[in-house]
């Protein structure tokens, strides 16, 4: 089963590498991984989509916690959350199919961001399954290229179940080091 794990890490040289090395070294799956800054300059957030049975996910979370550079690890799976992904998809068009493709973009609340005499590039954002659906619909037209950002996620509302490193939540809320 797929799990979305949100990890706050030190925004520091080598941290990203440490997490990736741990995943490959332990043989854990990574479906997508994104990293970016948070509201606190020296803390980054990684969103990792991984899969495995409960025992494996438990190990993933523990091993992430064990890394010195991780500040907080939350498995968002099964929690109220907002998940988003961005995809850029370039699709070939022929006479007549261009409007169809633009319509598809509209249905998925996407945008046309580039066009030339052969192909058209759409920007679609949304939960990963929405992107999957869009890709599915666009496939028959002939996808030339595609880039997906990987999932980013935040929990909804305020309450999260804190785990071991929850002292940091306060740190992070106050924006202190």
């Amino acid at each position, binding site marked *: 089963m797929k799990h979305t794990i949100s990890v706050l*890490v*030190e925004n520091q*040289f*080598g941290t990203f*590498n*440490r997490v990736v*090395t*741990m995943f490959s*070294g332990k043989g854990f799956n990574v479906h997508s991984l994104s990293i970016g800054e948070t509201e606190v300059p020296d803390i980054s957030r990684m969103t990792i989509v991984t899969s495995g049975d409960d*025992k494996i996910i*438990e*190990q993933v979370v*523990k*091993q992430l*916690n*064990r*890394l*010195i*550079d*991780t*500040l907080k690890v939350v498995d968002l799976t099964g929690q109220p959350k907002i998940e988003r992904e961005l995809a850029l998809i370039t699709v070939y068009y022929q006479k007549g199919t261009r409007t169809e493709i633009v319509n598809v973009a509209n249905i998925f609340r996407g945008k046309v961001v580039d066009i030339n005499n052969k192909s058209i590039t759409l920007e679609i954002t949304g939960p990963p399954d929405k992107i999957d659906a869009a890709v599915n619909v666009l496939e028959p037209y002939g996808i030339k290229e595609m880039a997906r950002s990987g999932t980013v996620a935040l929990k909804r509302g305020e309450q999260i179940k804190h785990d*071991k*490193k929850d*002292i*940091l939540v306060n*740190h992070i809320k106050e924006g202190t080091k």
Partner: protein
Amino acid sequence: MRSNNQKLSGADIFFECLRREKVEYIFGYPGGAVLKLYERLYDVDFLKHILVRHEQGATHMAEGYAKATGKVGVVLVTSGPGATNTVTGIADAYMDSVPIVVFTGQVPSHLIGNDAFQEADIVGITRPITKHNFLVRDIKELASIIRKAFYIASTGRPGPVLVDLPKDVVNSVCEFSYPEKVEIRGYKPTLYGHQNQIKKAADIIKKAKKPLLYVGGGVIMSGGERELRLFAKENKFPVTMTLQGLGAYPMNEDLSLGMLGMHGTYWANQAVNNCDVLVSLGARFDDRVTGKIEAFALNAYKIHVDIDPTCIDKNVVVDLPIVGDVKHVLAELAAEINEPPKIDEWWKQIQRWREECPLKYEKNDGKLRSEFVIEKLSEKTKGEAVIVTDVGQHQMWVAQYYKFTNPRSHLTSGGLGTMGFSVPAAIGAAFAIKDRPVISISGDGGFQMNMQELATAVYNKLPIKFIIINNSFLGMVRQWQELFHAEKYSFTDLSASNPNFVKLGEAFGMKSFSTNNPFDVDDILDEAFAVNDGPILIEFKVVKEDMVFPIIPSGQTIKEMMTKRLDPKEMV
């Protein structure tokens, strides 16, 4: 003492930090990227630098020192090949949770990534085999990184930490201030176990009819042997130990069942198999211990105490985890159990297993055997020596036949199984241990993997007894070839290529002995133990094709345990 605001060079800061960490020894080897440090070292008098002969030797020495004392072992090497030579020792320390800090020189910051002379990305290389590592990018971070390195290495579940020091950083100057406290917001080891969990564990242990304590290296690392001994004695609990746990409980006492696992005793493995409550203390359910996972302690309620949450439910799913320092948890558990459970029947059963299949070997054919040598050593030293083994058959025989009475006395490479560990690790231990003999035991194969360090031992006049159990084979591999690989003795026979070990010892300046006669063993050991102004070497030429029994083949259960070589007549 120096004022805190004076400008100091990187090299000065480095040594000032080591002084404050109370480092006594650095095991090191110089080279281009660390010349500035060595220049400063020339005048340093508050610690001793031990020049090794190979950087792998330095890391194992640091491990030997750390395992024997519980203090952090320190290594200093140059960039590139100096750094890559430490990799095996670092991996070894990682697997066995040994606190060491390895300082590596690095090319100047502006050359990093340029394939500069003697550049290696040692931080990248060692990332999966260190507890943590650092590249010092600014001299302002140097002191705090060193402080953190020692803190991380020695707290929680201990482990190796590497600090990479670019040459320009060490060469620059900066105001020195040493952080009083270490604050690492992502690192807070849990010390005290959860109260309710401990209570629950106690309730279950109280009701046990067939309890068993399964003790790992964690008990020794946490300094919890006293708590263990009280806990076991008060309640008459049987104790079995892992390879790393040997000595946590005195093995000459009745409550000790000896080692469990692949080459463990029959009765210890039977006890694991039949217990109703298994209390795992600082052990990690390693595959060499469990054999077939699904069958391990099948009917037992499993309680697992460990400081590292990742160890829990990793290999075996347990019923009751307690995350915390074993020493503390043991003390609290003991306090909760006021009345010993009644387990006389269980002890009778264990006694029957002991009699059913004792450890034994052939004593009456006049040939010299490792088991005999090790039994003799155990008697002579009353189980009180520090024994540093290598990897192979002799290692298992030591675990079976040497009756360790103290913790931090059995130093061995368990997790990684690194041949070449014994000689340098014994040297590291001998710098710290002065009141008991330090004995290195190697096979003829492994001895040749780090024998260059004999020079280090001789130069420093360390009274180590280097013992070679020479069976002219890579014995453990030969054993597997005989048992599981159709008797194809592929590249394991060393008889035609082994050196003359006595001459070799003498070339290094050691008094050296050799025998293949069991009746000589006493005299040689007496003579060897009388030498105290430097190391000696003894070669015991033992029977070539002996095997370690019992053995439970990898991934199997006690039902498949073999206790002796199959007689050809039985085979047909």
